[in-house]
């Protein structure tokens, strides 16, 4: 048995009468990026949040999210707060909303370190500058005193990653971290993520709808549909020889060779384009 940094077993989440996750299993290993693909409404974001123990108010959960021998779903709030940031951290889609606009990035970086790791002011600041260098922010010693709005979108996402890494977590959950970025900028952030995963031995869960991004950085890929993982496997296998018809349909729908193959229509076309997904008359 390989030791996993974080494992999700038979995770079920429902809100009201709606079952959003219907038994999800995912295992993250140190030094590997696990990509979680799926269309909107498939439950991929909810899986990412559940892995952090962040679930919407009023939801019911079952199953296990194991990190370092403990089930995060059972931990009291106080314990969970200690785990978050120190052992597991998250990067969100939009760096514009995940950073505090009124605080310098240095302050946002050191806050966590001083709180979780009990570092002194000077020590924390030195580490903050170090981290900014690690995420390749130019001129980290000066950058530490700037505010989020003084950075471009790509740089802000790098800062968000630095903050996530501040307390040396073992697991990083990245939810669509490059979706809001331009392709040329996305390329840089993807390279960074891959490098951090390799250098620090991070276990990364990369939630993305973009199979191109998935192919570029993920080692393993899971494909979700309607709250279930329909296929899991190594990147090359899943993207080149998919077993599940849904994975194949997702790949066929992508724009590739212009004239030769116009994009296919997903058979039965569930979540987005299907008419069966429409609410019934009068609802």
């Amino acid at each position: 048995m390989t030791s996993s940094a974080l494992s999700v077993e038979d995770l079920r989440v429902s809100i009201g009468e709606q079952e959003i996750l219907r038994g999800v299993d995912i295992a993250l290993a140190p030094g590997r990026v696990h990509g979680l693909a799926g269309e909107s409404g498939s439950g991929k974001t909810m899986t990412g949040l559940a892995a952090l123990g962040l679930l919407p108010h009023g939801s019911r959960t079952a199953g296990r999210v194991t990190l370092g021998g403990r089930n995060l779903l059972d931990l009291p709030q106080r314990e969970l707060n200690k785990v978050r940031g120190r052992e597991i951290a998250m990067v969100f889609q939009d760096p514009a909303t995940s950073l505090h606009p009124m605080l310098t990035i240095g302050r946002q970086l050191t806050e966590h370190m001083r709180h979780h790791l009990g570092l002194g002011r000077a020590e924390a600041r030195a580490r903050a500058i170090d981290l900014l260098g690690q995420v390749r922010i130019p001129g980290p010693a000066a950058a530490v005193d700037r505010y989020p709005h003084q950075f471009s979108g790509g740089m802000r996402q790098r800062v968000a990653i630095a903050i996530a890494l501040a307390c040396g977590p073992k697991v990083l959950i990245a939810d669509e971290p490059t979706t809001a970025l331009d392709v040329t900028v996305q390329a840089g952030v993807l390279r960074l993520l891959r490098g951090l995963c390799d250098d620090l031995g991070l276990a990364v869960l990369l939630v993305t709808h973009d199979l191109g991004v998935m192919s570029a950085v993920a080692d393993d890929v899971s494909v979700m549909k309607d709250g279930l993982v329909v296929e899991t496997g190594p990147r090359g296998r899943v993207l080149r020889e998919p077993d599940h018809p849904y994975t194949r349909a997702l790949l066929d729908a992508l724009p590739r060779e212009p004239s030769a193959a116009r994009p296919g229509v997903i058979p039965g076309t569930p979540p987005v384009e299907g008419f069966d997904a429409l609410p019934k008359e009068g609802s």
Partner: protein
Amino acid sequence: MSLLTVDELVVDHRTPGRPAVRAVAGASLSVAAGEVVGLVGESGCGKSTLARAVCGLTAATGGTISFEGGPVTRLGLRRRDRSLTKIQMVFQDPYASLNPRRRIGAQIADGLETARDRDTTPGGMLERVGLPGGMAGRYPHEFSGGQRQRIAIARALAARPSLLIGDEPISALDASAQAQVATLMRNLAVESGAGLLFISHDLSVVRLIADRIAVMYLGKIVETGATAEVWANPRHPYTQALLRAIPEPDGLGRLPEELPGDVPDPADPPPGCRFHPRCPMAMDICSEKEPDPGPVSCWLYPPA
């Protein structure tokens, strides 16, 4: 004669108390009837501003826009001139592009009314975009994003446009719906003999549907050409960087290439070629003199 000719278009955004931002800084472009032109570029390059100016939603500061031989005037409080209703636009956000309080049939009927078309029914238009005609009595909230975008396309096409503009019409959709909706727009425009100006940041989709590609960077069009040619042999360093940055879903684990540096502030563009601070092939002349507009606006390819 081309359907739409944009010549040396300049558009400034003015905010009181701030320097004017030149969103479009002298861009030239043409679209012929039945032709699909893809305008690509990254956020803030001015491509959406250009689209809005072509529709008359934004005033041009300089240059000319001519459509079917006449000038495009800015849409003010007066009713839009009938000849200009031949330009129709499909917007980016499928959740904002339909009136939530009206049945979709009534909204499509507005388009038919514009074209004085009494033979086509809203249901018939829905079928053309791949939705059941019987859904005309429903409200927008009963549809998914991709379906709403189809409805918006149906409404625009109902007005029988000779130029259809898509301003990032697929960027808010799920990946699987993107290519479908883009292909649908292409097919319907080409079938009806209309030109299509398709604006997107997604090169792989544009490659799929466009006959010609125009690449925009910081308010200027840096390269134009036949799609297959630009894709196979990009000449401008920016186009090259853009293509190299696209991650391919081939399962090979190749990391895309990064273009270092940030897009400069359009209020304070660099002198000379606007791309030179980030260009891996910059020469001395690049920072001194702006290259001439042309198929490739770059000093690496001096005009013959």
